[in-house]
Every structure is written in structure tokens, then in C-alpha cells.
């Protein structure tokens, strides 16, 4: 499968984020759907999915219009995660 450390770290980050949703719900329940600023009902899991999907597009957009390095895209992605989990 031609594994590399960065790709392994990426998948570990994705898996950890999914597992942490379960842990979060177990210790602090409250993942029921709520309506955010986009007018759609989302659970915590939905928000995680939207965050990751958006992160993918942020990074692709950065590469297409700005280029490497991707630190700016990382900062935007973190901001996007915070925005989605708080407001969406």
C-alpha cells in the first residue's frame, strides 16, 4: 500500500477525530441535531464530516490559487473547524 508517515498520520487524525466524537458524546451528551446558521439540522458527527470535507476543499483551493507551503490553508482549516462546530 506504499505507506508513508505523513499519510499514516492523516488517517490516524481522521480515525482519532471519529473516535473522539464517541468519547465526547459518552462523557458530555448533547450531540442531538440543532439548527445552525446555514439552516440545516446537524449532529456533532455531521459537523465533523462538514469540517473535514471543507478542509479538503480549503487545501485544494490553497494549492490551486496560492501554492505551497500549506500553513495558511492549515490555519484556515482550523478556523473552519471552529466555525462549523460553533455555528453550523
Amino acid at each position, binding site marked *: 500500500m506504499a505507506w*508513508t508517515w505523513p*499519510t499514516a498520520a*492523516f*488517517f490516524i487524525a481522521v480515525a482519532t477525530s471519529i473516535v473522539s466524537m464517541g468519547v465526547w458524546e459518552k462523557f458530555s451528551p448533547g450531540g442531538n441535531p440543532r439548527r445552525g446558521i446555514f439552516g440545516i439540522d446537524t449532529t456533532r458527527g455531521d459537523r465533523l464530516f462538514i469540517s473535514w470535507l471543507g478542509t479538503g*476543499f480549503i487545501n485544494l483551493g490553497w*494549492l*490551486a490559487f496560492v501554492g505551497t507551503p500549506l500553513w495558511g490553508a492549515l490555519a484556515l482549516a482550523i478556523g473552519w473547524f471552529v466555525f462549523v462546530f460553533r455555528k453550523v
Partner: protein
Amino acid sequence: MRKTTNQKAWWLVVPVLLLVAFNAFIPLMTVVNYSVQETFGNNAFFWEGVTWFEKVLRSERFHDSLLRQLLFTGMIISIEVPLGIAVALSMPRKGPWVSVCLVLMALPLLIPWNVVGAMWNIFALPDIGLLGYTLNSMGFDYNFTQQPVSAWMTTVVMDVWHWTSLVVLLCYAGLCSIPDAYYQAAHIDGASRWAVFRYIQLPKMKRVLTIAILLRFMDSFMIYTEPFVLTGGGPGNTTTFLSIDLVKIALGQFDLGPAAAMSLIYFLIVLLVCWVFYTVMMRNEEQ
């Protein structure tokens, strides 16, 4: 009465997880790994970082095939959906003709993709094909092997022929689920044919239409076999859609890194559209 807690049923999910792992997760992980490396075969890989993503995102070739893909998908949806609704509306709801119509409608869906491509290839050949020969005899300059417009028209018509039935069958199912009482009420109110369609049939078909558009979007966005057999992506690159271009890069040029990067971009677009449609469908259901 005491309820016992037993979580053993979770083990029943294991076969599905294994199946999904082997046909989705593991190939996807492999593609991600390939997308950041270069290989010349012999199982030797060299780290490239995000170079392939940058290269693909900035390449004119990718922009062109993505544009062609979006144009093709837009065209077939804007033809197939209204046509499918029109055919479904004109189909009988009762009597012996129902089965005949349903079987006729289902026939194109049963034909394999490569057979459809081969059929239309022969059908549209300008010198011996029935369609091509007839059009040329009528004075139209038609040759899908050399003219981009003819190639596009043939590809679009072929897809419309193959897949409008799906929209028809879905819409027909939606129409059949409308109780007679709605029509009786509309009749008493003196509603016109258009008003019945606009305020009764169309709202009741909303859900099936969303499913139809989603299915047609996904299928047409990933279309490969039919245009590949019909035109081979030509003339030139005029009918080279995303998947055809991807196969050319991956298998024709054996550029696994750029092909993997392009696959992931392609996958993200499909995922985004799926999520948008899923969200819209769930909202419709709630309403």
C-alpha cells in the same frame, strides 16, 4: 421486569465492516498514499508531497475535462428530467398497457454499458449505421468520428436513450402514490391540467425527482464505458470526460501519482455533491 444489556449483536456488523474495508477503505488509503509519491514500478516509491495535487489543479487538461464533464452532466439532466416527467405523465395508470409500458421502459436499463456504446457506435456510423446514413441522406453533414458537435450530440442522445427510463420509472412511482382524492378535489375546484401538475403532481414527485437527479448526476459524472466505446474520447479530446482522462493518465501514461491526486479531487467533488443532495433530501422529508 429487568432488562438485560447485551451488546453481542454488534458482532453481526463485522462482515459488513470487513467488506467495506476491502472494497472502499483500503483502496482509498492506497490512492492517498500514491497521490503523494512517485513510482517507476518495481514497488519503489519516492516522496513528492503535494506536488501532484498542485500540478493537477493548475493543469489546463484537468480544467478542460472537468468543464466537459460538468457540461455533459448539466445537459443530460436538463433533458432527461423534463422528458422523464413528460413520459411518466403520459403513461397509463390502469389497464393492460401498464405492464407493457413498464417493460418497454425498463428495457434500456437492462443493457450493459459497453453494449449500449457498441450499439450506438454502429447505429451512428455515417456510412453504414442507420442513424448516420439516414442523417447524411437527408442532407445533414453528420460524422461523429470526425466532428466534435456530432460526437457530443451522439453521446448525449445515447445517454438520454439509456437513462431517461430511470427518471420515468421513478416519476411514475411518485405519480402512482398520489391518492385519487387529490384529483377529485382538483376536479371539483375546476383546476386546469397545468394547475393539477403544478400543485398536486409536482410537489408529490419532489422526493423521487431529487433521488432521480442525484442518481443521474452521480452516474453521468462518473460515466466511462459508454463514451469510451462510442467515441474513445474523441475526436481529439472533445468527449474526454473526467473518468476517461483519469484512465488515460493512470493506465495509458502510467502516471500513478498525478492519477491518484486527480482521483482524490474527483472523489471530493462527488462527496460534496452527495452531501448536498442528501441534505436537501432530508430537509424535504422533514417538511
